């Protein structure tokens, strides 16, 4: 067992970028792993539903290049959690394609471990039939077969178990599908025999990059070190510092409870933790408790298509119209419905959103901001793009020329910033599955691949 286990987290999301100088500073330490989270549900269900990534390929490659070029020759395991954002097959393939490209360009050799997280509909249907699925929070509806069948992208969040197995098989680069964010970090500590509570709590702190430092950012590197009965965190950039409050406060971040965290197969109890400044900028944490659950439940995430959207953004500066905005919008909707009398009103939905500050006159605005203009966004949702766009075009032209009471501005009611004004958004998704499913800890299968001098065999 290593006395000290050091993990470098380069940034909060692969492709967000980080200063190379911070990363190189981290390499001055004897590192046991470079781990980067690439995933999130933050950007909504679209990424999972549409199979696209949240960062650009260019940015992901830029970050991965630094990791691979410096990490691989030093034999430091590199782990990517929740590849491509949502961690489903298209996201995993997208990430692997970039990695193969880098290895090929640099003529490097590596043993790759790939851990898919896709869950077939059949598995979910079966588990649901056997009452082995439950909603994650009380405001999520219970699953039914119809919802499962409508959900074509389903992933499960893996714990540390398959990642640990990839480390035991001496993998150089481990690419995980959807993973519980702290698990890829925790796997390094656990591989070296460290306490699971400390390993997971450190993972929770490291997964957002330097967000636990002050000033916090997801776009910088942070170093975590696990010892016998504690772990420490420190910034790798002189511009930011970890403090006991910044690290304790980060334990809070984006979780539903400040000190009880639920992960696959366990609960983390951080109520008795202490946060102490050991050296300037180095915060030591103790008493993170890992409580193994009697039953192993994993979190499922699934997205289904809800509708297609077309929308318009426009500004309104006319005070007479602003004084009766909502009622004019109601009249526009009514007139649109009358025009499309052959279409059932249930088949589409028109929604208005009001935003505003100096968007219409820009720098020539003479009046101090006081809510004198409104940015209106309206959207039409329907089951086909064609229907959404047709109705949106009618709403737009009706709104633009609507002759409301006492109108002086008979030339038009809306200031469009763009031509064309109507934007086809494409499909809109929703998280249709966000449930726990009973499973075993070895639910995920690791696949291995060898790359020799840039060529995969």
């Amino acid at each position: 067992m290593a006395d000290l286990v050091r993990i470098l987290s380069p940034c909060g999301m692969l492709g967000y970028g980080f200063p190379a100088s911070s990363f190189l500073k981290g390499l001055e330490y004897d590192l046991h792993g470079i781990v980067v989270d690439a995933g999130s549900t933050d950007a909504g269900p679209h990424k999972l539903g549409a199979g696209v990534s949240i960062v650009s390929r260019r940015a992901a490659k830029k970050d991965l290049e630094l990791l691979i070029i410096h990490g691989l020759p030093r034999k430091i395991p590199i782990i990517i959690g929740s590849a491509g954002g949502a961690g489903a097959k298209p996201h995993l393939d997208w990430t692997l394609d970039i990695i193969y490209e880098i290895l090929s360009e640099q003529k490097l050799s590596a043993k790759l471990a790939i851990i898919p997280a896709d869950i077939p509909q059949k598995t979910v249907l079966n588990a649901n039939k056997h009452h082995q699925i439950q909603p994650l929070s009380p405001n999520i509806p219970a699953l039914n077969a119809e919802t499962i069948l409508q959900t074509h992208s389903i992933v499960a969040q893996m714990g540390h178990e398959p990642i640990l197995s990839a480390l035991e098989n001496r993998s150089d680069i481990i690419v995980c599908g959807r993973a519980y964010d702290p698990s890829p970090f925790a796997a390094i500590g656990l591989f070296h025999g460290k306490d699971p509570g400390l390993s997971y709590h450190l993972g929770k702190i490291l997964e957002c990059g330097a967000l636990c430092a002050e000033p916090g950012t997801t776009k910088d590197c942070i170093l975590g070190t696990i010892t016998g009965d504690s772990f420490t965190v420190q910034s790798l950039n002189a511009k930011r510092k970890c403090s006991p409050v910044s690290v304790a406060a980060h334990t809070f971040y984006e979780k539903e409870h400040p000190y009880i965290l639920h992960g696959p197969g366990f609960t983390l109890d951080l109520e008795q933790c202490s946060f102490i400044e050991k050296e300037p900028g180095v915060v030591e944490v103790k008493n993170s408790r890992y409580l193994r659950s009697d039953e192993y439940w994993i979190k499922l995430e699934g997205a289904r298509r809800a509708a297609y959207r077309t929308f318009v953004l426009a500004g309104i500066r006319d005070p007479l119209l602003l004084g009766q905005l909502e009622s004019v919008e109601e009249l526009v909707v009514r007139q649109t419905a009358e025009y499309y009398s052959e279409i059932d009103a249930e088949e589409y939905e028109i929604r208005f959103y009001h935003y505003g500050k100096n968007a219409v006159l820009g720098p020539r605005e003479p009046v101090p901001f006081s809510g004198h203009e409104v940015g209106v966004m309206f959207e039409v949702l329907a089951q086909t793009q064609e229907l959404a766009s047709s109705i949106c075009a009618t709403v737009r032209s009706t709104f633009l020329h609507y002759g409301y009471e006492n109108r002086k501005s008979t030339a038009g009611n809306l200031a469009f910033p763009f031509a064309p004004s109507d934007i086809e958004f494409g499909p809109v998704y929703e998280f249709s599955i966000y449930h726990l499913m009973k499973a075993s800890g070895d639910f995920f299968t690791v696949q291995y691949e060898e790359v020799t001098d840039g060529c995969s065999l």
Partner: protein
Amino acid sequence: MAALYELAKVIRSKNSGPFELTLDILFDSASTYERVKKSGKVTPAAISKLYGTDESQIHHFVFFDQALGIKITMARTVSSGTIGDRDVYGAQQHAPLFSIEID
């Protein structure tokens, strides 16, 4: 009297998963944190009134002394990023907290 935004170091909101919104109020001095905690102004009842939601929709309301922070987690009315959501990351839902007056 002081407004909560004058006393807190951080007042933020964020999704905690697509179906929940979490509010964090963090302080940089133990005395200010204690003052707010003991004021009786930050309560589930006050939050539900401020956000126009039923108290049953507040899933967690916890004071975490080590972090000098208060965490409030409530049900989202619309899940993140789908039809009718106005804040995909839930990152601009904290402002109503600013106005809470602390004795």
